[in-house]
């Protein structure tokens, strides 16, 4: 089997890149795992988010803004192509605060970032009463919020399904249930799977999430990524209760209230725990007291794919040119950028985005 690009990892990141390459007429094979694989694409929170990102690296804030700005167009194209809409809402999002001190500290950081971004950081601070006008169900413990107008949320599972559908529709080959065991480059790339399948490709994209930690070094990458568990809750479907999303809770397009998320360093354990559930429930009720009566319908644990500084890694292998590492923990926010902008970087066109700050060289000094 031969392709211009072999993409290792068929989650939202891999499929977004595949989609972008297919649009440029490339022949693409996506190699995907099995039903039980760790899949951040199935467990993520679904925000298309800008605020709080890149506080120490304005380029990351900018990259997130770029992606958020072209998301709607991307979602619309997927919807038109597949006949199944990808729900997206971009009318701002909140960072809710339970104390004046944390609110003030955050505002100070945002001001610094705003200056670095030449003022393109449209946010406003809402006191409790102003917030209550926007969110009638907000609780008395919430002192205020930062409303950032570039934030929003999507249905990440509809995005995954639409990508899986459209990549096939555009002629991409997707191989499911595969485990890549080795990649070599005698002339072109040879990708070896545990079931004996061998795929040949001129270029390779490693977008295997946590799987890149093991495969990365074989391709000459450092791939210093680790799992971080996030537990997430979702309630029964409810009438409209929350207008805009926050990191604490959002009302999904189907009606459930999704509540997140823990940040736990527990290795590859993706279980749910009672203390995790209880802590998240208590925080959500503090923000929206009406949630106390809501039934929990589902909960899950999912593993974030984190680099040491939390930023994405975009790196071409120095040892095996033509192999690219693409990994991030915001695959939903960055999906549009990965689909529409990243292929220019891999193809080295004039429109290639400058991704130097996301290279692995930043991990050299430790």
């Amino acid at each position, binding site marked *: 089997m031969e392709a211009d690009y072999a993409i290792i990892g*068929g989650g939202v990141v891999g499929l977004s890149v595949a989609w972008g390459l297919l649009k440029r007429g490339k022949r693409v094979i996506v190699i*995907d795992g*099995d*039903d*039980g694989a760790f*899949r951040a*694409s*199935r467990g993520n929170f679904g925000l298309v988010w800008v605020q709080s990102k890149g506080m120490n690296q304005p380029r990351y804030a900018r990259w997130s803004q770029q992606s958020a700005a072209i998301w709607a167009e991307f979602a619309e194209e997927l919807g038109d192509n597949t006949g199944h809409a990808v729900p997206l809402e971009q009318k701002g999002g909140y960072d809710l605060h339970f104390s004046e001190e944390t609110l003030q500290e955050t505002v100070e950081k945002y001001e610094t970032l705003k200056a670095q971004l030449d003022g393109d950081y449209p946010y406003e601070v809402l006191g409790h009463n102003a917030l209550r006008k926007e969110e009638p169900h907000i609780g008395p413990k919430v002192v205020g919020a930062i409303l950032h107008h570039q934030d929003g949320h999507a249905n990440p*599972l509809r995005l*995954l*399904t639409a990508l*899986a*559908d459209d990549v*096939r529709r555009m002629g991409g080959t*997707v191989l*499911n*249930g595969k485990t890549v065991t080795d990649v070599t480059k005698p002339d072109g790339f040879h990708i070896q799977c545990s079931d004996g399948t061998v795929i040949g490709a001129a270029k390779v994209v490693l977008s295997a999430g946590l799987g890149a930690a093991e495969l990365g070094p074989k391709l000459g990458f450092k791939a210093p990524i680790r799992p971080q568990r996030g537990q997430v*809750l979702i*309630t*029964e479907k409810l009438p409209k209760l929350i207008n805009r999303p926050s990191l604490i809770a959002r009302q999904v397009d*189907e009606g459930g209230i999704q*509540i997140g998320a823990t940040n736990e360093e527990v290795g590859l354990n993706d*279980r*749910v*725990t*009672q*203390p995790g*559930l*209880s*802590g998240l*429930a*208590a925080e*959500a*009720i503090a923000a929206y007291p009406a*949630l*106390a*009566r*809501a*039934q*929990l*319908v*589902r*909960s*899950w*644990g999912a593993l974030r794919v984190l680099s040491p500084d939390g930023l994405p890694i975009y790196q071409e292998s120095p040892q095996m040119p033509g192999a690219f590492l693409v990994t991030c923990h915001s695959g939903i926010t960055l999906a549009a950028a990965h689909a529409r902008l990243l292929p220019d970087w891999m193809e080295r066109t004039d429109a290639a985005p400058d991704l130097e700050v996301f290279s692995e060289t930043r991990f050299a000094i430790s």
Partner: protein
Amino acid sequence: MQQNDLIVIGAGPAGMAAATEATSHGLTVTLLDEQPRAGGQIYRDVDRVADKRGDILGKDFTYGRTLTGGLRASGTTHLTGAMVWSIEDGFRVSFTKDGRAAQITGSHILLATGALERPMPVPGWTLPGVMTAGAGQILLKQSGVLARRAVLVGSGPLLYLIAAQMVRAGTPPMALVETQTRGDMARAMRDIGGAMRGWPYLVKGVRMLATIIRARVPRYVGATDIAIEGRAQAEAVTFNVAGRAKRIACDTVLLHHGVVPNTQAARSLDVPHRWDDGQQCFVPELDTWGGTGVDGLFIAGDGAGIGGAKVAEMAGRIAAIRIAEAVGRLTVQQRDARAAPLLRSRASDNAIRPFLDKAYPAYQPALTPEDATIVCRCEEVTAGDIRRYAGLGCLGPNQTKAFGRPGMGPCQGRYCGLTVTALLAEANAQTPEQTGYYRIRPPLKPVTLGELAMMDTPEPDAAE
């Protein structure tokens, strides 16, 4: 918090017998059950109902009082009305009772969560007026309510039992539409040797059938192409039998084609399961004692594989004896001596199963329904949707769950799990074992965010 030697979940025959046995050996035991009174589904509400409706429900039902009486006398802590929504390693069991969340811990767990009726997704099965035969029987046990103008559809001993109970209650069903064929019975006869060891079951079966025949309830055997007609409500059952199309107008349709283990709790603890071809379902992998691959975790009763009430009772006691030995209350010799007669009679009571499984197999068209039939009622996902997701690369039910929401609703996939696995296995030309099952997560049963939050105990502030 008091540490139990054993936490038993479910107060049916397996759970009651296990708790009683374990307590008799001096173990600290807590039994959690959802119902207000002990009995499980099979002996549901037996203490209250036996005197009122014992003549309709029969001797096998009233026998349940032996177990409820034993449990009461044993001194087991029995928490009624307790909904267990999470079980974690260690073991930590979280539940809600009287609107309050609580938690207990124990070194051993016995899951005795019983069986579920195998869903029977035939065209029209989601119409009002259609329910499982078991749900119909619960109405009879608990409230004495009986459906009039009802047709029983499907196969298996429970179908006959309910029909016989309806006859005795004076409202016989309009008809029995049975899906098993004469060929099934012929295949089953190869296991008649085993069946003869279980002869009391055969005698009961013959008696039930005699009751049904005496009441002149029409029986249609080998029915195919079953569908339920109706606009806002079930109005008729249609089917073919021996090449002839039939239609029976009715108000109620009771569907049943066997029961399957309720594996949700075991799955939530990652107990390994295997596919049982005879019973067409997943069963947990267990040792002789009911021990699982998870240290300290045991399973007894129909949740371990369908065996019926007597097998469940013995399996519960067997597991309790093993756990008593594990905590040092019995020596290995005492354990083996006490378990030996129970192991023998469990084997003889199980001997009828291969015969029953073959004589009354599941209705094949309901295992992999036609495209238009809904398989996930909670999220209204059809069989055709599942096949389409297979075409998009879904090899297992956790991918289809992400793609189209089957299994995401309030039932936690209890009712669509096996159907989704079967459809994917067929579409991908894989075995059910390769296809796998839903990853089960809390909540196992409904819980509100308020109840969850009550258990939030922040780390004490260092300054205080």
